[in-house]
């Protein structure tokens, strides 16, 4: 490996993806695993590839929350019971994804590196808007794979240091980026989860109430959607819940999530119309 120094006109700047492709041209064997864009996988049956499912995002009084279940499915098989679909993107933002797990995890990894790379090369962090746009470009670059069935749809949340509030960004497969106001949910159980959040949402929720609401919404999604996993008390596997506020990303500890999950299940068992 030699020092990656470029001429003034070829310099990739703070763009990590461009850096990867510049290096690839110089030394073809350098990075065999390139970004998914441009590679062509010939999957006849994309449904055999593990898929991740439901992600919920909710704004609360001090920031924004993102939560995701832990199941990955391949057709009617449960491919993974412990998959993690919510990740910190950098210190002040988080990303969750629904869709093909392989390309999605690669995309998240690349996104994380890109944000950190930009920050180090430029000496300042990207704005939240800038991060959201970066992610949109990655989704757009994945369109050829999406057309073959390997769809990746992220949900992006972060703390905006300009307007001093948490924000939620939702994407479509073509890289379209939409800012949501108070809550959003994606994935196969997303409709169910969102319906519950819409019904129970109040503005200025406290952090605890937002955690409870997200876990209840995921629970409701798991009741109706076989591809979404509920809290698994037998194995001790619970949804991942994380918040982003002024002080940054923070994952809610598993034992706390387990406690609230238990309360949610008890609450449902005790009353409320059940079918």
């Amino acid at each position: 490996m030699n020092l990656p120094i470029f001429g003034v006109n070829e310099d990739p700047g703070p763009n990590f993806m461009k850096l990867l492709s510049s290096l690839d041209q110089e030394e073809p064997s350098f990075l065999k695993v390139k970004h998914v864009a441009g590679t062509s996988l010939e999957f006849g049956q994309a449904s055999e590839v593990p898929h991740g499912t439901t992600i919920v995002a909710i704004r609360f009084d001090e920031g924004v929350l993102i939560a995701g279940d832990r199941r990955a499915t391949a057709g009617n098989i449960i491919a993974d019971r412990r998959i993690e679909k919510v990740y910190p993107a950098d210190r002040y933002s988080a990303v969750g994804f629904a869709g093909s797990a392989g390309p999605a995890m690669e995309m998240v990894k690349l996104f994380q590196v890109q944000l950190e790379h930009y920050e180090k090369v430029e000496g300042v962090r990207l704005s939240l808007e800038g991060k959201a746009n970066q992610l949109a470009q990655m989704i757009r670059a994945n369109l050829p794979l999406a057309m073959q069935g390997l769809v990746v749809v992220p949900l992006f949340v972060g703390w905006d240091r300009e307007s001093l509030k948490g924000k939620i960004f939702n994407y479509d497969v073509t890289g379209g980026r939409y800012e949501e106001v108070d809550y959003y949910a994606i994935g196969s159980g997303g409709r169910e989860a969102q319906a519950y959040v819409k019904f129970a949402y109040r503005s200025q929720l406290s952090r605890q109430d937002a955690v409870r609401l997200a876990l209840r919404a995921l629970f409701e999604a798991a009741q109706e959607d076989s591809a979404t996993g509920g809290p698994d008390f037998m194995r001790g596997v619970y949804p991942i819940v994380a918040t982003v506020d002024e002080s940054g990303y923070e994952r809610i500890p598993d034992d706390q999530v387990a406690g609230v999950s238990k309360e949610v299940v008890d609450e449902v068992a005790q009353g409320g119309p059940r079918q």
Partner: protein
Amino acid sequence: MSMPYYVAPEQVMKDRADYARKGIARGRALLGTLYDQGVLICAENPSRSLHKISEIYDRIAFAGVGKYNEFDQLRVAGVRHADTKGYAYSRHDVDARSLANIYAQYLGQVFTHEMKPMEVEILVAEIGSVVSESQLYHILYDGTVVDETNFCVLGGDAEAVLGRFSNSFRASWNLEEAIAASVAALAGPGRVLLANDLEVAVLSQGNGRRTFKRISQDQLKEIVKGEKE
């Protein structure tokens, strides 16, 4: 009749080295040292935006003296090297030793083959899993690498600063003590350095995955002022 143009290679190398040394000596000094929580790097730098000290990777920091555009180019190349390596393999596979070797190769190459050597001296520091195993690689303009123990000084007037600092150095002192001693050594007798003359950063075990952190001006003011009283 013109004589054939000949300069002895010894002379060429000496001229280049003198040229590089002169460029480096014009700048202010920079100091790296271990302390109880990690590695401290302290530089005299009146600018708040043109940094001499920067983050390369989770456990690696970079510092440079001399010509800004030249060491900044090396800094960015280091970030690129580390990020691509960590992306292709694993974050654990990125280490200061290999980065220091690559810098040394490059600087050596430029020194012998290019028109002009780089007028820089750089420090690549890595915090160890145990602080005492941290590494300080001091790399010179001609590609010489020195694996320093405990502390090192780069830049103009380095020997005098080193002399002052080695008298005050103590193993596993705390951050405040280390900063105060570094500032005193950089300033020397008869000079006072204030917080806004300084750029200070650490690689500290308490900072999570990314160990690099800049010491804020407010924090610095308190430490530097406390020392004077």
